[in-house]
């Protein structure tokens, strides 16, 4: 039976809660139309990039972007650094709350989300004179250029020449079966075989890296209109991934920073990674560029690329200054400054590798060669939902490699989960 006194107490407690909840719905925030002080007046410009934390390369990148201050001596440049694992979450939270850095780099999946939320400043007026290449085309949203390519990084197979020599391997494997054989040969020397991400704790990096396997088998996650997660090509990719994990050549439990360090320390034979990571191996001098050999991914079809986008905060207090930085970045001077630390990536304009860099880093040419053929990690037609869909996919892959689930069944389940969300 309903107790009147208790009911009254409940009402007394619940009423302020309800009133408070309703009052809070009045809270709001929005973007600003104000461009801030003129470029000549200067100001403090904050630039956020997780790559600034990379040993060796981070400082080179900062030095390159700081070149803008030589052109505009009224500007004070500040770097904002957050590790990759927390970078997107932190930036989304800051931007959503109306704050955040003035200029930042973002993965293309995050770009789509931020563009849809109206948090990116249009850059059309500052890129007019730039000779942008086609990598920038998909950064136009509703007729407005909301970002420019910071770098487009492709994936390739890398080998540690010192480890390979010790195992008696002359050439990089070109198929998955050869890769397993080579990995096993390396293991005989005491080093580990192949470094790849394989744990949910690294979801943000894992789903980007994993695309190599289904894409390499001719798969994709959608046909532009419908999700195609459980397509035969994708199943074949997961089966090959499982085959490699089951072969024992992958040091299971090693996260990316651990297996990358092992590669640099001559304790790992092979690695499937992007050109940015490849350059960071040589940045602190543990191994040199000539200790690394590179080749296309060991699949029949091309793999993926990660596009990293440079964008301006629509809520920045120094919007004019931030946009002027982008103008400088896509100019010949800016692109030449950023070319060396971005190594073998495709940039916003077709600025070539220097001869000096190519000689120091012979592995870089593979990335330049494969880049035009690679596919985006964004899911076509579902761009803003890419991460959510990939959560379902990677949970399926995790079931396959840890529980021995059937790849076809697991991807079918992922297809159902992703479609119902």
């Amino acid at each position, binding site marked *: 039976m309903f107790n009147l006194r208790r009911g009254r107490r409940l009402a007394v407690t619940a009423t302020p809660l309800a009133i408070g*909840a309703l*009052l809070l719905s009045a809270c709001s925030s929005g973007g600003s139309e104000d461009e801030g002080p003129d470029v000549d007046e200067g100001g403090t410009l904050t630039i956020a990039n997780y790559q600034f934390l990379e040993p060796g390369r981070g400082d080179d990148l900062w030095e390159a972007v700081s070149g803008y201050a030589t052109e505009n001596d009224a500007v004070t440049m500040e770097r904002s650094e957050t590790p990759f694992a927390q970078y997107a979450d932190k930036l989304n939270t800051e931007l959503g709350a109306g704050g955040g850095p003035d200029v930042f780099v973002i993965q293309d999946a995050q770009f789509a989300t*931020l563009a849809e939320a109206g948090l990116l400043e249009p850059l059309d007026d500052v890129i007019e004179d730039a000779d942008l290449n086609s990598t920038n085309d998909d950064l136009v949203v509703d007729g407005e250029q909301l970002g420019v390519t910071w770098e487009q990084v492709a994936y390739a197979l890398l080998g540690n020449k010192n480890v390979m020599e010790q195992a008696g391997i002359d050439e990089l494997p070109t198929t998955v079966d050869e890769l397993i054989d080579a990995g096993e040969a390396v293991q005989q020397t005491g080093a580990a075989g192949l470094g790849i991400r394989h744990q*949910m*704790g*690294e979801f943000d990096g894992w789903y980007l890296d994993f695309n190599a396997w289904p894409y390499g088998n001719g798969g994709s996650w959608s046909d532009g209109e419908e999700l195609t997660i459980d397509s035969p090509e994708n199943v074949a990719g997961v089966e090959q991934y499982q085959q490699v994990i089951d072969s024992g050549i992958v040091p299971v*439990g090693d996260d990316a920073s651990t297996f990358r360090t092992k590669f640099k320390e001559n304790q790992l034979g092979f690695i499937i990674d992007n050109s940015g990571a490849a350059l960071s191996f040589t940045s602190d001098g543990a191994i040199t560029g000539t200790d690394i050999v590179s080749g296309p991914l060991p699949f029949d079809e091309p793999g993926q690329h990660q596009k990293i986008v440079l964008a301006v905060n629509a809520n920045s207090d120094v919007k004019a200054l931030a946009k002027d930085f982008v103008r400088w970045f896509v100019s010949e001077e800016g692109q030449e400054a950023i070319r060396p630390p971005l190594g073998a990536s495709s940039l916003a304009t077709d600025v070539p590798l220097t001869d000096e860099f190519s000689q120091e880093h012979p592995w870089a040419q593979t990335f330049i060669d494969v880049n035009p053929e690679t596919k985006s990690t964004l899911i076509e037609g579902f761009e803003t939902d890419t991460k959510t869909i990939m959560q379902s996919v990677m949970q399926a892959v995790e079931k396959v490699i*840890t529980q021995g689930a059937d790849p076809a069944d697991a991807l079918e389940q992922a297809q159902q989960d992703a479609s119902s969300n």
Partner: protein
Amino acid sequence: MVTTVSRSHATAPDTAPRRRRRWRNSFTAYLLIAPAVGYLVVLLLFPLFRGIQLSLTDTKLVNPAGGDFVGAENYTNLMSSGQFWNSLLATLIYTAATVVFAVLLGTAAAVFINRPFRGRAGIRAVMTFPYAMPTVAVALVYVWIYNQSGGVLNNSLGVLGIGQTGWLTDPQWGMFSVVLATVWKVFPFVMLVMLAALQSVPEELYEAAKIDGAGPMSTFRAIVLPHLAPTLRIVALLMTIWSIRRFEIIYLLTGGGPVERTNTLVINIYRRAFSDQDLGVAATIGVLGLVLSILVTLVFFGVERRESRKEAAA
């Protein structure tokens, strides 16, 4: 009696000044509690209201002011989602296992270090050490210990001829590994509290038990345990609430995996809010987690009241 009446008559003309004085006293009192009330409003009630409000909307992380009211849709969707129930189950398993093992180990350790022996101060300091360590450092150390290919645990087991185990990657072992690391981190708290409680047991009771010929187990059951019971209950409550809302060590060890086995409510909130960028659903899970904590607290107070009645009756 007469005196009282005359005094009341004498003070009657002073009603206004008395009222002013009373008002001034009340005002001072309100002024003194204002900072505490302000603190609670800003840091407790505001987030609570905001959480409840968000749970009734489809708010996204990148547009926190742009969510539309969706009523109870988030709640009904969650209730019909298998993932939510799995997450709740993971929370209950993690909480129960952590509380039981931490309380048992902490109490046993307290009883052990309560006895006089050589080097006791040093042992006490060493046993308190895990609690003083930052959680992030503990998680990183355990990641290395548990590493499947080169971790201390598998290498040690390898020496004994036992094969490699995926402590953090095998769904069979994920929860066990996380609970083990958590218990190692938190049991010193239980130990310290129980040690304080043990030291409040009067020495005469031990002597009386000894004279009566009671052995160590009977002494513990008849003398020590009744003294420890109220402290045990409050420690268990605190450990339960802390376990329900624990994040860092679980996230750093497994990120909610393998295969969702350690995807507790708090990890689920983080994933929904940041990976899916769905603040509305994340807030809904938060509200349901709050309900779970309130239920646990109500059960605790129910048990506490029953025990008080028992003691009063005795």
